[in-house]
């Protein structure tokens, strides 16, 4: 089996590209991954997540920092000595080799005896249910099958850590769902330590034991999916995890664990803990499905439905509040264009962050962050 270790540690890993301006692609990422853990690096494109993965794989040298496997320093080792399996976004299967020889590439490079290679290859192919495709060439397989070959190839070398770079992003949505299930199953069966890069929050939420959100090369938050989902530390993480409504507001009353807020044409209360003073500018973050049509408690925001889309089970609507602010909401209720509604939000589901969001609520970039 794979080399046993208890922890893969990234210590202040920094990567600066030549001509990449003053801000590094990855800045002082510190992270400890326990054996058997599934950690997802999540962020928009350009956030440094792939750079982080390439640093761990040894495909890109660190500008500073270090990577350890327990006490052994690995960032100074060349890629081929690290024994980390990697699954690439575009699979990177060797087009001139059959599936069998693709999967057997790792064992062959390690100069394993022939029957041992054969054993590992058939075990890996069985795992991804592609045994009968062993003699095909990669071009003769579908995208999903190619992806499974790529996974089998990474697993066949019995790696200590598996690195996956957006492995599902080239698949259509149905296949992506299926493969997500297969990855989960594989991880459960093999207990492989996995570092997984994605820009898809759903993928990260469903697969990871812990998630790391990156932005502009800096770590924003790390923790179990529920924690990030329910309590994003800042408006960027909130925005990235589906808090589509980011609204500028002001604190009016602080007290009793309850914050009273007003914005353009709306008043809300929030149970967010944190240091807020009356009169302070804040950003309010609310998930579309936390907005309740009909109002909650004493929260009542009047709005007009501006756009509705039927999603099969739910309705997604864009509404305009009296003050001109636009909100996104999701509800089971049938909504009509131009309809007047009263909206409310449970104070526990209203996140408040210091600083004001920019006027453009479509932009994930927040003024308070710069």
């Amino acid at each position, binding site marked *: 089996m794979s080399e046993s270790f208890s922890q893969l540690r990234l210590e202040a890993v920094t990567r600066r590209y030549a001509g990449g301006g003053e801000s590094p692609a990855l800045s002082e990422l510190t992270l400890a991954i326990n054996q058997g853990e599934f950690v997802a690096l999540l962020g928009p494109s350009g956030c440094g997540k792939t750079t982080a993965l390439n640093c761990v*794989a*040894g495909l890109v040298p660190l500008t500073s920092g270090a990577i350890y496997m327990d006490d052994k320093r690995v960032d100074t080792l060349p890629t081929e000595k690290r024994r980390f399996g990697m699954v690439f976004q575009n*699979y990177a299967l*060797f*087009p*001139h080799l059959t599936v069998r020889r693709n999967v057997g590439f790792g064992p062959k490079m390690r100069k394993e005896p022939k029957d041992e290679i054969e054993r590992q290859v058939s075990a890996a192919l069985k795992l991804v249910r592609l045994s009968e495709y062993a003699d095909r060439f990669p*071009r003769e397989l579908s*995208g999903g099958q190619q992806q499974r070959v790529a996974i089998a190839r990474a697993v066949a070398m019995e790696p200590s850590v598996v690195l996956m770079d957006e492995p599902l992003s080239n698949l259509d949505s149905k296949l992506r769902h299926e493969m997500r299930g297969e990855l989960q199953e594989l991880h459960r069966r093999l207990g492989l330590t996995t570092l997984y890069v994605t820009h898809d929050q759903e993928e990260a939420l469903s697969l990871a034991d812990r998630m790391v959100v990156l932005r502009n090369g800096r770590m924003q938050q790390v923790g179990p999916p529920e924690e990030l989902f329910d309590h994003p530390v800042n408006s960027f993480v909130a925005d990235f995890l589906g808090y589509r409504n980011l609204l500028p507001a002001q604190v009016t009353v602080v007290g009793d664990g309850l914050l009273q807020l007003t914005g353009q044409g709306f008043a809300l209360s929030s149970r967010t803990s944190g240091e807020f003073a009356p009169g302070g500018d804040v950003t309010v973050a609310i998930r579309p499905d936390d907005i309740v049509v009909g109002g909650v408690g004493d929260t009542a925001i009047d709005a007009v439905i501006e756009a509705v889309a039927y999603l099969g089970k739910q309705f997604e609507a864009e509404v305009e509040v009296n003050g001109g602010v636009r909100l996104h909401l999701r509800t089971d209720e049938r909504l009509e264009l131009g309809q007047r509604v009263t909206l409310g939000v449970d104070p526990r589901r209203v996140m408040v962050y210091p600083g004001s969001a920019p006027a453009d609520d479509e932009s994930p970039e927040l003024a308070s962050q710069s």
Partner: protein
Amino acid sequence: MTTTATPDAPPKVALRHRLAERGVDTLLLLALPASVFMAVLFFYPAAYGVYLSFHPLPGGGGFFGNYQAFFTQPYMRDSILNTFRIALPAALINVVFAVPVSLVMRRRIHGQKALNTLLVVPITLGTVLVAQGLLIYLGPRGWLNRTLTALGIISNPIQLVHNNLGVVIALIVTGFPFAFMLTASYLSGINPNLEAAAGTLGASSWRRFTNVTFPLLAPGLAITFCLTFVLAFSVFPSAQLLGNASGGAHVLAIAAANAAFQDYNYPMASTISVITAVIELIVVALVLGLRSRLYSGSTSNAGKA
């Protein structure tokens, strides 16, 4: 060409679409001037040359007289061997050196543009200029020999020109840029992630090259070899200026030129040209035959992008 549509076919299909269904496109007409040009200036002279080669001058024998003469005269026969002695090393050296150079140039290195220009410039110089330059530089009283003598490395000038070596050097100077540019473009078509993947699977940089890059590059190298070989095999100006033309060791092109312009034997010159062309075709066919046994599909990725 165009047959009338069957009676039960939809009547309103435009002629253009019906032609397109059969792979006929009016845009093909644009190829007409080039085809006429090729016919008048290449195919006709080539065919005429073949015709001439079978019609020896009076007293030159029958239908195959010229070919008999060619293969019975040692002077002529040896020119084939001598051309191979020049063209084969030149083409091989060009291809073999183009690989590491393009591998290095693929990385982002300092002064890459300057180096690229330096490697490609000899193409613009023309063979006569290169030959003349080499004659002066490498000659018995050239800079190279004088420097080496002054440094005490050699006592007598080394003979680098007026022999096959000189011709090979000239063919490398003029042929290498072609080989390099071709190889570099084939190499740029290989997805760098494939090598990265091989690395993560435990392959050292040498094994990444032998197991991944080289097999994917090999079909391109075969084409590169064919082109540089054909260029080298039909060498004339470099051989005339740098070779040992008077000493008997000459290439086919010189033999043909001598037949035409010294002996005024056009049919014999044509014969030599035809033989040159046939040998080139045989070599190209052999190399392409070997190439067809290699993997020659997409090198960017396994399947779709």
